[in-house]
């Protein structure tokens, strides 16, 4: 089985909680986590729902492999309709919270309505109750976790919560667990804030004990762990350097978006890279990087734990930021750094700590600051409006805007809207480097063509975690393709999107796919669940999930016109590097992608596609 078989429904409006049996037909067809929670959302909610209204639902979901010995089995997702994108949102997080929720005996928590006063949800195995959170409202994520453990006298509690940014409904507010692991994207934290839900605190002692074939499971799991250990990326690159191993690599291929995508290479990349994190600082002789860290069950351990220079201008007399803390990961280092032209590693880690402390997505925040800096340099925004001189490269402006945004002060309120709304407000919507309202991650699609198609068609807006063709186009996983070619990319993007949806729904981490394919996942999940999760079936399930998400977006009012990229990427050629002179050739890929997907030219699903996928 491996599912707990039970979900918790929370009615915030009336203050009620209720246990329900899991819909096993849906579980078999959509596995868990991303797929299964999305199925519940799609079935239960009008796609046109306003994301910040009480009618939106907010689902915490584990997968069948969450809380098991399968490597990386600590993931959970938060599924809702995203306020940043108005599309289906699904943000995935590691740490320990997800496994604890599963070990308490719950596959999912479905939160509905809006509480008349701030509350948090307390779960201890079968016991679940809403409790008053007036003492927690206004507190940061870090304070919330500390206060809950202290007042409940339980240091083993696991907490998933929002900070002040979520309360203030910053449109890219995240939900953070275990201090620095986040369901980061699309503004899932703002939805929690809109509902008056501060946190979920959970203790789970029951465990996951209903593995269908324990013997086969342990054999499959051990074998798959060996594949991870023997692989150069998951066995060496990620544990040693973290995702930051990519900074110099992506800069060299000319796909490191710089200064709001004006450039594709950053002269300061080396200063904010994995190598820089591991080199002793001139100021105090200490390394930025302290150690690597694993999430629950993870045998890769890519997480970074760093310590800042205590004399750095951002943290002088602020000892709360002197301890070891999460960061920097590649996406955050890029968004807070290259996207703004800032090469001050310490300033990036300070901003990153604020993102974790008060729960905002560093990618959307950093990219929005990039847009602000461009508007500032154009003279559209002034020093008086922003509150500080905000030219590209200013570490002071980055730190100041991070403080203002997480606390909802001054110009931070506008930064909290995200780049799409902010640039539109000041008359330059083309300067928002986003798709469906969500900012790009750290790969410029002029230098990695397939990523342009992956971004344009991603169901949650621009995102690297929905179809990471960088693996193929840059790293040669599973096969090397030419990053500047468009031929074959529709098929490649589809294959990555479908496989990713299956992995995301299992409860495992997508980083395993640097070493694993669906044939490595199949025996583990089959032994755990006792279902026919063959490689082929998993691929089909992934495709089903992708199409279900797409259909939800279509019914919410999105059209093929939303599957596009900002003008800059389609018309302004890359200035330097291997992709010099190139734009993203989306138009060459998109129509064929629709065909490969079995969609009509307007981006809707053909009847035969629905039928084939059981939608």
């Amino acid at each position: 089985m491996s599912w707990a078989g039970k979900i918790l429904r929370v009615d915030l409006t009336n203050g009620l909680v209720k246990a329900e049996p899991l819909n096993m037909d849906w579980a078999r067809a959509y596995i868990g986590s991303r797929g299964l929670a999305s199925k519940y959302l799609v079935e239960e909610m009008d796609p046109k729902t306003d994301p910040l209204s009480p009618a939106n639902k907010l689902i915490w979901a584990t997968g069948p492999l969450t809380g098991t010995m399968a490597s990386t089995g600590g993931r959970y997702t938060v599924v809702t309709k995203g306020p940043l994108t108005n599309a289906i949102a699904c943000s995935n997080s590691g740490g320990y919270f997800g496994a604890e929720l599963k070990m308490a005996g719950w596959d999912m928590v479905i939160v509905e309505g809006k509480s008349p006063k701030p509350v948090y949800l307390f779960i201890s195995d079968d016991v679940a109750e809403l409790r008053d959170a007036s003492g927690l409202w206004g507190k940061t994520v870090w304070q919330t976790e500390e206060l809950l453990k202290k007042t409940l006298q339980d240091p083993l509690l696991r907490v998933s919560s929002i900070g002040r940014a979520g309360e203030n409904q910053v449109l890219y507010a995240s939900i953070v667990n275990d201090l620095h692991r986040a369901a980061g994207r699309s503004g899932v934290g703002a939805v929690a804030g809109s509902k008056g839900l501060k946190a979920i605190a959970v203790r789970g002692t029951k465990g996951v004990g209903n593995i269908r074939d324990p013997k086969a499971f342990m054999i499959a799991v051990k074998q798959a762990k060996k594949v991870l250990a023997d692989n150069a990326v998951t066995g060496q690159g990620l544990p040693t350097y973290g995702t930051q191993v990519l900074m110099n690599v992506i800069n060299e291929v000319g796909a490191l978006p710089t200064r709001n995508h004006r450039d594709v290479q950053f002269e300061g990349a080396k200063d904010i890279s994995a190598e820089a994190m591991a080199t002793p600082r001139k100021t105090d002789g200490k390394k930025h990087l302290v150690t690597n860290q694993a999430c629950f069950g993870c045998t890769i351990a890519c997480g970074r734990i760093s310590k800042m220079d205590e004399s750095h201008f951002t943290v002088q007399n602020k000892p709360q930021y002197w301890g070891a803390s999460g960061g920097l990961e590649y996406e955050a280092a890029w968004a807070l750094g290259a996207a703004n032209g800032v090469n001050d590693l310490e300033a990036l880690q300070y901003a990153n700590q604020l993102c974790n402390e008060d729960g905002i997505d560093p990618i959307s925040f950093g990219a929005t600051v990039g847009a602000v800096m461009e508007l500032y340099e154009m003279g559209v925004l002034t020093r008086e409006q922003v509150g500080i001189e905000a030219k590209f490269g200013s570490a002071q402006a980055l730190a100041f805007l991070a403080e203002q945004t997480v606390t909802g002060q001054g110009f931070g309120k506008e930064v909290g809207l995200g780049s799409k709304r902010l640039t539109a407000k000041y008359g330059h919507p083309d300067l928002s480097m986003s798709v469906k309202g969500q900012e790009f991650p750290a790969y410029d699609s002029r230098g990695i063509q397939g990523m342009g198609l992956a971004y344009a068609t991603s169901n949650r807006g621009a995102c690297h975690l929905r179809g990471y063709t960088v693996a193929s186009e840059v790293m040669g996983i599973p096969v090397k393709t030419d990053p500047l070619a468009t031929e074959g990319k529709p098929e490649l993007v589809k294959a990555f999107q479908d496989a990713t949806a299956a992995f995301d729904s299992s409860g495992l981490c997508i980083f395993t796919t640097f070493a694993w394919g669906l044939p490595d996942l199949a025996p583990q999940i089959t032994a755990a669940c006792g279902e026919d999760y063959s490689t082929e079936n998993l691929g089909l399930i992934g495709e089903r999930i992708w199409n279900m998400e797409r259909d939800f977006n279509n019914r919410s009012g999105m059209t093929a016109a939303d599957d596009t990229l900002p003008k800059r990427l389609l018309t302004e050629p890359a200035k330097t590097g291997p992709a010099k002179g190139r734009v993203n050739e989306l138009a060459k890929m998109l129509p064929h992608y629709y065909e490969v997907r079995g969609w009509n030219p307007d981006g809707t699903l053909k009847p035969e596609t629905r039928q084939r996928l059981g939608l």
Partner: protein
Amino acid sequence: MQKVLHINADKCTGCLQCEMACSFENYGTFATARSRIKVFDFHHTGKKVPYTCTQCDEAWCLHACPVEAITIDRLTGAKVVNETTCVGCKVCTIACPFGTINYVQESGKVQKCDLCGGEPACADACPTGAITFIDANWTGLDRMKQWAGKLGNQPAA
């Protein structure tokens, strides 16, 4: 040869594979809450420290037990709780200076590490070598070798 669990906290990443392996070995379920080895996360320093029973020779728990429910496994040297004899009085949990023997409310007995009869599941599951099961007389071997390397890795004169 007697073997012991040897812990090198510097290698621990905090993945909790050991805790899951322990609970699976003893209860057939993945439940970190029921593990006999615990990993502590000191987030201000970034250190993770696995901690479990060291199998004291003069075990406080064994001597404190009023019903002689804790005995020595002659093969492994482990101090083992006999569940049928244990009355759940918890005196051993008071006696143990290290806190590594604990009461289990579900069973009404105490539990502690028993070295899995000589094949500890935690050591087998640890992906980084932070937990190993090695010759009891030579737990310092790795560290000695590390320092010896100062000489050994120099080219011959």
